[in-house]
């Protein structure tokens, strides 16, 4: 049986070449963009896409304007405008970030681009670290935007360069869609010859003004362009057909690699069509593949996008072929694919029985928790304790502080989406009039999506409390800057937008506290939960993230400990454990002082050098 030309070796595997280096998928995308001559890149952090922009900040020349934007919508608007001046622009986000930017994308696709625009949108099958495992390809189709679906870091590099070429040639934005396993996967990448960037210029020809009559025309243009593009894609090597057999597989993304390995290790004969462009489909080669009949499996993730396109094509052309995938129940409906799952799928398709493999051991779960000394822990604890015996609902949001839910008493009762904490608080406050409503938002989240919700609450005079957890960074994704900070992507100085001032100017009653001063924090929590309702109140809790600025002292448990175990039971700090009927604080303590503050017998004190 002929071995498939595995994507990793298509570049005639010169492993000894100095020009081939091992890169991650995200790094490869960044390099592809640099070599494609971009002039602008704007992004908002989001796992698994974050390293695209981070790599650009490390490697892009100073002539390229880079920006961590306030949110993905702004980032896309920045990139669309740049592309409107004839420049090549990139924006990067995770899949739920596209939800935020979608308004700009839907119109942007109609208006088209003069230069080039590539959106890197990273899906997260599973999900590993996202609110959904939605499939970007469906949104791209709704917007009329082409999608390239790379499987290896080399393809991530090549497809990014190709995406800029396609965008420039056809005048439309193009999406490059890595998934987590590609973004954080590492493999060989050989770069091509770089091309220079272009000079921006703005022509006052009205081509960037959308109006209803214009929309009808542009919609027509978009439909025609996608048809033309489908024909063009069929002439490229973005699709590849190999093998023979009644059993067929149509693949895209990293799942193609799982399939290849399964076919070879099981010795199964099949015909395979790998698609690097999944929207629009290169229709003729796909139809020809289906027309060969038999059983064709759609191997893709996270959802049944290709499977549906194949079923549509089958119906339109009345083809005698059986299509299988998630819809038919031949692939799992949820969760990510893997080499293990593809072995099972291929074995079943080929009528083979697999020998059983050992089941995973799930005995000792290791849930992520807030770091030792995290200021969010003190804030959550203070509010939880102040809420005892009272009716209080805590709305939560996206960030490290979502981990408030893994504290001994879960600190948040809701978590929906970026800005959802204040948005949902607006919904709960007027209905639950006998309940205090407290929303928690991080600083980066506040700038991203929290401001309209606060404005709404002020205008409606809702009785709610907004606690902004300001640790002066975007922590969960790796400490990227945001507008509240005095730094930017590549500059150590920047103009700060002050959170407390902003909230005051919006008309909220604002107070500020340092969570490391537990007495002050406790006083604020009690005050806010007992104050007479009088519209929205904001508490800005400011203390730096301990990963960026660890505390200067360590605490220790002294002889005075009487074994009441309150610190262990209630704080949930990973630095505190129980040994020999006493609490014990280990060297991961970063000195936030919370345990010392809540100890009923004052048995916790600073560890001095002599000890």
């Amino acid at each position, binding site marked *: 049986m002929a071995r498939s030309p*595995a994507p*990793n*070796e298509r570049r005639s*595997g010169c*492993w*000894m070449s100095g020009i081939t*280096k*091992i890169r991650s998928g995200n790094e490869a995308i960044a390099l592809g963009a640099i070599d494609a001559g971009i002039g602008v890149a704007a992004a908002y952090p989001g*796992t698994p896409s974050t390293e695209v922009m981070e790599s650009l900040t490390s490697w892009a020349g100073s002539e390229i304007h880079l920006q961590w934007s306030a949110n993905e919508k702004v980032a896309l608007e920045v990139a669309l405008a740049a592309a409107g001046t004839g420049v090549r622009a990139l924006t990067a986000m995770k899949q739920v970030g596209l939800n935020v930017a979608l308004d700009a994308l839907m119109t942007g696709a109609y208006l088209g681009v003069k230069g080039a625009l590539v959106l890197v949108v990273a899906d997260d099958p599973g999900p*590993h*670290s996202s609110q959904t495992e939605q499939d970007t390809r469906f949104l791209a189709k709704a917007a009329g935007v082409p999608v390239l679906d790379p*499987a290896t870091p080399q393809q991530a590099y090549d497809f990014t360069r190709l995406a800029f070429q396609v965008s420039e040639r056809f005048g439309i934005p193009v999406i490059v869609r890595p998934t987590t*396993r590609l973004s*954080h*996967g*590492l*493999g*060989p990448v050989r770069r091509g010859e770089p091309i220079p960037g272009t000079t921006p210029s703005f022509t006052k020809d009205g081509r960037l003004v959308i109006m209803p009559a214009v929309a009808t025309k542009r919609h027509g243009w978009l439909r025609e362009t996608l048809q033309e593009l489908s024909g063009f894609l069929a002439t490229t090597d973005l699709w590849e057909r190999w093998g023979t057999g009644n059993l067929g597989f149509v693949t895209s993304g*990293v799942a193609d*690699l*799982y399939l*290849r*390995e*399964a076919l*070879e*290790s099981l010795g199964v004969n099949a015909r395979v069509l790998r698609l690097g462009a999944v929207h629009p489909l290169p229709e003729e080669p796909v139809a020809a593949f289906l027309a060969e009949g038999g059983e064709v499996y759609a191997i893709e993730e996270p959802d049944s996008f290709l499977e549906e396109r194949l079923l549509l094509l089958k119906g339109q052309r009345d083809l005698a072929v059986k299509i299988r995938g998630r819809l038919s129940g031949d692939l799992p409906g949820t969760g990510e694919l*893997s*080499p*293990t799952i593809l*072995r099972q799928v291929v074995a079943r398709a080929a009528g083979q029985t697999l020998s059983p*493999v*050992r*089941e*995973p*051991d*799930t*005995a*000792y*779960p*290791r*849930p*992520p*928790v*807030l*770091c030792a000394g995290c200021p969010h822990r003190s804030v959550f604890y203070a509010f939880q304790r102040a809420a005892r015996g009272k009716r209080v609902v805590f709305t939560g949001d996206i960030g*490290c502080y979502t*981990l408030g839910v*893994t504290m001994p008493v879960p600190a948040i009762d809701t978590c929906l989406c970026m800005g959802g904490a204040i948005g949902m608080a607006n919904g709960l406050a007027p209905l639950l009039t006998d309940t205090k409503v407290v929303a928690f938002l991080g600083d980066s989240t506040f700038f991203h999506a929290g401001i309209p919700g606060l404005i709404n609450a002020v205008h409606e005079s809702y009785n709610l409390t907004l606690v902004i957890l300001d640790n002066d960074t975007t922590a*969960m994704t790796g400490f990227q800057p945001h507008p509240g900070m005095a730094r930017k992507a590549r500059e150590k100085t920047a103009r700060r937008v002050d959170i407390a001032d902003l909230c005051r100017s919006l008309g909220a009653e604002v107070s500020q506290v340092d969570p490391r001063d537990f007495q002050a924090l406790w006083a604020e929590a009690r005050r806010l939960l007992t104050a007479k309702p009088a519209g929205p109140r904001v508490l800005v809790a400011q203390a730096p993230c301990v*990963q960026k600025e660890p505390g200067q002292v360590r605490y220790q448990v002294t002889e005075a400990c009487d074994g009441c*175990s309150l610190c*262990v*039971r209630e704080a*949930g700090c*990973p630095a*505190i*454990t*129980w*040994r020999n009927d006493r609490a*014990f604080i280990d060297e991961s303590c970063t000195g936030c002082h919370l345990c010392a503050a809540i100890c009923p017998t004052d048995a916790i004190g600073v560890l001095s050098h002599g000890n």
Partner: protein
Amino acid sequence: MGTDLFLAGVGGQGTILLVRVLLAAAERAGLPAVASETLGMAQRGGSVSATVRLGEPGARYSPLIARGAAQLLVGLEPGEALRYLDFLSPTGTLLVGTDGVPPAGLNGLQGTYPVAEILAKLREHHVRTHLLPARDLARQAGQVKAQSAVFLGALAGLPDWPLPAETLLGALEELVPAKAREANTMAFGLGRDYRPEG
């Protein structure tokens, strides 16, 4: 026949450094290699897992490894080794550190973390198991953080290991900060020369 490794540890133990050193060493030796990193919420005390596939056929495919297919499982933490034991081939080798890191919740009051039991379970379930007191050896070398260097040394000491020890050491020295080089080099040596008592 290539060498497919599955690595598992807790955030902060150096699992990712291990992956990067293996890849750098493979590049130097001209050996095809691919890898994956599951970062998860590693800094927040969560699991870290990774795969490295050295040589063909592994390096031709995705970095992920099918269950029961890895030749090597490197467990920097015993509970994590147990969590991913299903990825190790029944004829493969398990290299596991003996120092447990209790998960949040098993803080001694609401439950204990039975490291000895976990290690016993690992040995019971798997024939070729090497226990490595990596933390002690790293401490001997002068830096507790040099645990991943101990594991690298231990890998270099395994039969059928595809990369020369000098190449591994060279890659390690290049990737650690200058002031940590000496301790890491020593930790590498201790890992390589370690033989359990008896």
